[in-house]
């Protein structure tokens, strides 16, 4: 009897395990590749994430986790194109200031409750609510949602926000200005729905694994701060049947070299490659070392404010310094991770951005150096009157190498004395933000895949314009681009003006440089924003 029960129990267990892991034992439904039994994806994060609350999260590693735990109106596919999420689609009026999203009726929270339009309304109101004081409240302003700015400033009630649930499956958003790329912005975590009941019950502690309820493909099952967080499949997710990865583990490893060692020891499926090590790793592990363009730039900005150095007020000086930078040496010998050389501010990888023919890009380095000497001499600087200034960067090995290379290039080619100064991150931001510098390092990653996310930095009244560049024509073009159906030519013109006036020296554009286990399938290398979703990944059998 006992034996019989045991045998049938074992049989029952086995059959449950087989159904539960239908994919694990089988092949990929579209590619036909054999799938690994263990569908666990383990990756390294540099630092502990700040939060997994969609309206509060502000760091990249947190947003990656939130994208797995929650699902917004729209998602991105492997190429960064917009695909349905909780919404199956949307319509807009002619003036593009009212958007209506239709929500799927089978979307569920992990506790089984349906996901409705009011969950979005609650979340969006929450994002702008001064009581929550989200550091990403500005994203709702950027989305131009009606009354968002007034609510944040405390002048209107959250109930005045331009978002409403027509019924359970219809969400209507009213904007204060037409915004052609509004739907793209709904892939951002700030716009993801939030479970009102759970938040009201647990307060700030609602994001702890024992309390959290989410609507994405995964649920948070474990979180050991500074060590790891684990997310596992949400059985209630509407597309659970097509999800392959069972479990995703994010390990906090502060040191990138230790992370690389642990990757090589087989503890991780993905880690970043430290600067300069890509060529060696590519030789030793050609299948695993990958590099692809990303939506970020790396530049130095001149201080063009009234308090800035007199010398930099002359465009010839700025252009000469930019020309003398041998970007090839920096990208190939220092970074060595397949980063593209930069001659424009926005990366070529930006969607809908036509890279203008910048004169400098087509010249040889020898020609550039020659022209740089002429321009600097014309500006009145030479051996008798050498140009001197200080360049600041935030403390980091890689930034230091780049800064040393730049100062050497300027010294050797132009006789310029650039003094290096490094600062701790927060001090650096403070000094740069207060224009207490001659020339400062800068880098920017796009908040969304559109050239304005970069070029807006050079708008005269932008809070991010630390160099205080001011050009009326640039301002005009950028504000025209906001509402234009075809902004590409406007952006191209802005880049032409920037190339002529050189308020910044673009140096390189970022590449995603990873060690990625070759059995990880479908990593979205063509998604330049690197908005990846674990539900689209899979692991093949080795």
């Amino acid at each position, binding site marked *: 009897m006992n034996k019989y029960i045991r045998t049938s129990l074992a049989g029952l267990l086995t059959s449950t395990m087989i159904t539960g892991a239908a994919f694990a034992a089988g092949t990929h439904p579209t590619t036909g590749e054999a799938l690994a039994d263990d569908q666990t994806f383990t990756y390294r994060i540099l630092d*502990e994430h700040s939060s997994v609350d969609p309206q509060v999260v502000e760091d990249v590693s947190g947003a990656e986790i939130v994208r797995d735990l929650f699902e917004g109106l729209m998602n991105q596919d492997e190429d960064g194109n917009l695909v349905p999420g909780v919404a199956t689609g949307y319509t807009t009026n002619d003036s593009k200031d009212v958007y209506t999203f239709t929500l799927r009726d089978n979307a569920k929270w992990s506790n089984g409750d349906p996901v409705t339009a009011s969950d979005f309304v609650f979340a969006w109101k929450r994002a702008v609510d001064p009581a929550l004081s989200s*550091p990403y*409240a*500005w994203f709702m302003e950027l989305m131009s949602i009606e009354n968002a700015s007034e609510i944040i400033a405390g002048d209107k009630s959250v109930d005045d926000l331009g978002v409403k649930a027509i019924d359970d499956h219809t969400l209507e958003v009213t904007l204060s200005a037409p915004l052609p790329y509004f739907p793209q912005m709904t892939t951002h975590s700030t716009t993801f729905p939030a479970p009102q009941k759970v938040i009201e019950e647990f307060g700030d502690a609602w994001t702890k694994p024992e309390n959290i309820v989410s609507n994405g493909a995964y649920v948070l099952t474990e979180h050991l*701060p500074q*060590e790891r967080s684990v997310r596992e499949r949400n059985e209630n997710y509407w597309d659970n049947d097509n999800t392959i990865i069972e479990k995703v583990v994010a390990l*906090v490893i502060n040191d990138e070299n230790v992370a690389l*060692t642990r990757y090589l020891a087989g503890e991780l499926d993905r880690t970043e490659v430290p600067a300069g090590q890509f060529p060696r790793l590519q030789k030793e592990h050609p299948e695993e070392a990958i590099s692809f363009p990303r939506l970020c730039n790396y530049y130095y900005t001149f201080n063009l404010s009234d308090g800035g150095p007199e010398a930099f007020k002359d465009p010839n000086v700025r252009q000469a310094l930019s020309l003398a930078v041998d970007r090839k040496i920096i990208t190939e010998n220092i970074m060595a991770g397949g980063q593209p050389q930069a001659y424009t501010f926005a990366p070529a990888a930006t969607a809908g951005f036509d890279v203008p023919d910048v004169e400098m890009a087509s010249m040889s380095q020898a020609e550039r150096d020659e022209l740089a000497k002429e321009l600097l001499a014309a500006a009145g600087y030479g051996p008798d009157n050498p140009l001197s200034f200080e360049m600041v960067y935030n403390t980091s090995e890689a930034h230091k190498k780049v800064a040393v290379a730049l100062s050497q290039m300027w010294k050797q080619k132009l006789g310029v004395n650039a003094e290096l100064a490094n600062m701790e991150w*927060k001090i650096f931001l403070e000094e740069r933000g207060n224009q207490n510098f001659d020339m400062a390092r800068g880098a920017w990653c796009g908040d969304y895949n559109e050239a304005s996310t970069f070029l807006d930095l050079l708008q005269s009244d932008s809070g991010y314009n630390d160099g205080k560049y001011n050009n009326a024509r640039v301002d005009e073009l950028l504000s025209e681009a906001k509402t234009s159906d075809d902004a590409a030519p406007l952006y191209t013109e802005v880049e032409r003006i920037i190339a002529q006036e050189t308020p910044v020296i673009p140096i390189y554009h970022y590449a995603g440089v990873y060690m990625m286990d070759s059995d990880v399938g479908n990593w979205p290398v063509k998604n330049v924003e690197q908005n990846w979703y674990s539900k689209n990944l899979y692991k093949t059998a080795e």
Partner: protein
Amino acid sequence: MLAYIVRRLLIAVPTILLLIVASFFLMHFAPGGPFTSERPLPPAVLANIEARYGLDQPLWKQLWDYLYNIVVHFDFGPSFKFKDRDVNDIIAQGFPISLTYGSLSFLVATTVGVALGIAAAIKHNSWIDYFAVGLGIAAQALPNFIMGPILILTFTLWLGWLPGGGWNGGQWPYLIMPVIALATSYMGSIARITRSSMLEVLNSNFIRTARAKGLPTRTVIWRHALKPTLLPVVSYLGPVFVYVLTGSVFVDIYFSTGGLGQAYVGSALSRDYAVLLGVTILYGVLTVLVNLLTDLAYAWFDPKIRY
């Protein structure tokens, strides 16, 4: 003795208070704040955040509220960076971890260090001495930020014996490397201090007397030489104990142990004021307590000292 302890504890109160006030102002005077970021927040958003955390109040008011909450509610405030945890949570999570690998490192460093030092002194100028001195110097020259990567390369990548990091509730495979990394250089110092102290003691008159009356070497060492030998070692161990207990930032960084060291440095870099201050207070209190214990221990090691 009891009166001495009470007196010391009473002095500790203004000491800690001074520490809090000084750290509070130093912290607020450092450029940049918790919400300084590469994407400067719009003024209205920043104002909401500052209001939420009371950062819009004058500094003296913030300090007063802070002290009030500690004394009345034992609440050390919220973390500005980690939204679902406050300072009490962060310390409750990190301190036990630091305490575990710290005490183990302390135990290893002390026992191995003292044993090596004594062996070297007894067998002065023999191969044991040279070996112990060599090992001591080598260990001292290997701070934990050098030991960390070497250990991981050796035991994780090449030999594949140990996991490269993590804590997992403090299971032993996860403990070995952090403990060795943290203990090594202290062990070296302890061995050298013990050796030179023991050599000095062995040459003193009372030891010569003990030997002259025919006591066996073992008794001379254990009963007469050991206690005075350990006196300088104990004064070195006090601060070391506080240091290893409160966690090592390098151990936390290299082994992802999740201890308090990383939280401390991280909070300073991100200007997470309450966390920084909370951990500083913890370190301060521990220092005061351990110093008191060290002073009490002196009395046991040296009967000439009385309180």
